[in-house]
């Protein structure tokens, strides 16, 4: 179950140039028939056992990216290499077997569980789908995984509405664990929970990761969570990745103006926010009509003519090849908070 048993040639997950657009409106009376360019060329890698946090504001396309990677949508372009195989091109049985190692946890603990099924059946369903184990064996696995997430196996006959939000999320996590996957994609699993519960669930995820050596693709907009859990971070804006780095590097030396703005906006205990070194003006543009050039330029105080015209590529930094930025004028300050650009 550890990463070593597979020992793939490359990283566990390698996303390259992922594109997913949605057609909007259409029909006879639609005034805007166009496309929502939710994911516009996203690339990153994820190693076995690693946690990569995908952060960004709402509407930036991170949920779409997550779902496309999980093959809930078909990518319009690009590749998703998981355990060496490109999921984008798989279908039918091949896709089904690839899914065993890749599971997903969703944001809404109310909506992600079928209200008509007892939770035992919900958790066990992946086993049934893949025809694993006899009835007895499945019962055992069910009990084990329920205990691991902090639920009482005797509650297996109850229905989702009889559990609290936090417990439901545990059920969802149990469901994701039952197939013993290599990678779990967690789409904002904490956002719908009460703050006091959030840390419990986060700690649960950390324990599970240590115990099983799982890799996590963790979608979130909450930088505090990122600080607690992620090994590496990828920052997303309007369908593009603008920066990826190890966690410490990102927080200490963010290179993209947007990243800097995100970090500066995190509330500090003791009141007030960190002093905003960079102001961002304006609203987030609509993903249906993204501006040409760098997607951030309308809000960026450092924007120049080049920014308006050409799309910056995600380039590794000289001093730290693991740290990549997509910016024509990246921040060069040696330290983060409060320093002038």
């Amino acid at each position, binding site marked *: 179950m550890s990463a070593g048993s597979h020992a793939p040639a490359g990283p566990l997950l390698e996303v390259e140039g992922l594109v997913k657009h949605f057609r909007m*409106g*259409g*029909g*006879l*009376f*639609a005034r805007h028939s166009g496309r929502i360019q939710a994911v516009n060329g996203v690339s990153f890698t994820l190693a076995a056992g690693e946690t990569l946090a995908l952060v960004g504001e709402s509407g930036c396309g991170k949920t779409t990216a997550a779902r496309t990677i999980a093959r809930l949508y078909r990518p319009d372009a690009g590749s998703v290499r998981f355990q060496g195989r490109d999921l984008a091109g798989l279908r039918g049985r091949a896709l089904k077997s690839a899914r065993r190692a890749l599971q997903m946890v969703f944001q809404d603990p109310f909506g992600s569980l079928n209200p008509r099924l007892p939770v035992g059946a919900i958790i066990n369903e992946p086993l049934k789908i893949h025809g694993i184990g006899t009835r007895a064996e499945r019962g055992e696995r069910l009990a084990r995984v329920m205990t691991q997430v902090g639920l009482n196996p005797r509650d297996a006959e109850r229905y989702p509405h009889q559990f609290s939000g936090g417990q439901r999320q545990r059920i969802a996590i149990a469901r994701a664990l039952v197939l013993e996957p290599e990678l779990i994609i967690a789409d904002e699993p904490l956002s719908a929970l009460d703050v006091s519960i959030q840390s419990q669930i986060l700690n649960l995820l950390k324990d599970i990761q240590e115990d099983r050596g799982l890799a996590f693709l963790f979608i979130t907009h909450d930088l505090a969570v990122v600080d607690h859990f992620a090994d590496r971070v990828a920052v997303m804006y309007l369908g593009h990745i603008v920066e990826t780095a190890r966690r410490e590097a990102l927080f200490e030396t963010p290179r993209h103006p947007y990243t800097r703005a995100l970090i500066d906006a995190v509330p500090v205990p003791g009141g007030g926010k960190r002093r905003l070194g960079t102001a961002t003006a304006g609203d987030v543009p609509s993903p249906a009509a993204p501006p040409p050039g760098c997607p951030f330029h309308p809000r960026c105080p450092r924007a120049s003519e080049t920014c308006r015209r050409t799309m910056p590529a995600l380039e590794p930094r000289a001093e730290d090849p693991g740290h990549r930025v997509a910016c024509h004028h990246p921040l060069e300050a040696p330290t983060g908070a409060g320093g002038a650009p």
Partner: protein
Amino acid sequence: MTRYIAGRLVESVVVLIVMSFVIYALIGLMPGDPIDLMIQSDPRLTPADAARLRAVYGLDKPLAERYLAWAAAALAGDFGNSRLYARPVLDVMPGFLLNTVNLMGLSFVISVAIAIPLGIYAALRQQRAADYVVNLACFAGISVPIFWLALMLIILFAVLIPILPASGVSSVGGGGFLDLARHLVLPVATLTIFSIGSYTRFMRAATIEVMRQDYIRTAFAKGASRGRVVMRHAFRNALVSVVTIVALSFGTLFSGALITETMFAYPGMGKLIFDSVMGNDFNMALVALLFATLVTLLANLGADIAYAWLDPRISYGGGGGRPR
């Protein structure tokens, strides 16, 4: 919008053509064929004669060929002769059609004239006694078997209190407007009572729905009187929904007319369909059924167009599907 209409027109034509084939095939599956009928009336025909006649009339050819032959003739205007009336089908139909138009038209007008105000009234008195009574009456209206209703009316007004004729469209040896009117009373009453229940319910529901809208509340807040609000806003918008639903219940109205005509021996399209199907008048049955299909399709098409035209807020997602 025109694209939509054109699309729906094409659809309707396709359905009509498909149905013409289906009906043709179904009629062919009715007991007996023209040759059998000939044999029945002339026992001297031997099986050899029968076989020869079949070949002559092309009755031994496969279904598709026979259908295409019929279709070709039909497109040229020749729908064959009616066996029961010994005349070309197209000569026989118009008379029956007119009678049905009278019956359905009259009932429709009366039903709607009563249902609309009644529905609005009930909607405005929601949850109160008047509303419950109206609601109950509507339920009764939609639950009553129409042929039983006809029978009860006949018993009441032609048997127990013999003031109206129980059948036909005119008395023997007589005619004239009053006579026609007397013959129409019971059939029209039957069909009207049959439809009024559902129309009233629709109107009531549509009015309630409209009254709930924010712009109505705004009008009240602006100080408009109840009557004004109802007449200017609620009525018009509820009417939109009702127009479409009523057009869609054309099929039901026609079925109701069919039964009514059969009960009262009223010579309309419905009775024509029934008699020709039961009487093995294949040519007539085919054309009458096809006509009924055509008219129902047109009514549905009209409903869709009216709905689209009156409510441009609808968007048809994913390729021109129906806005419901």
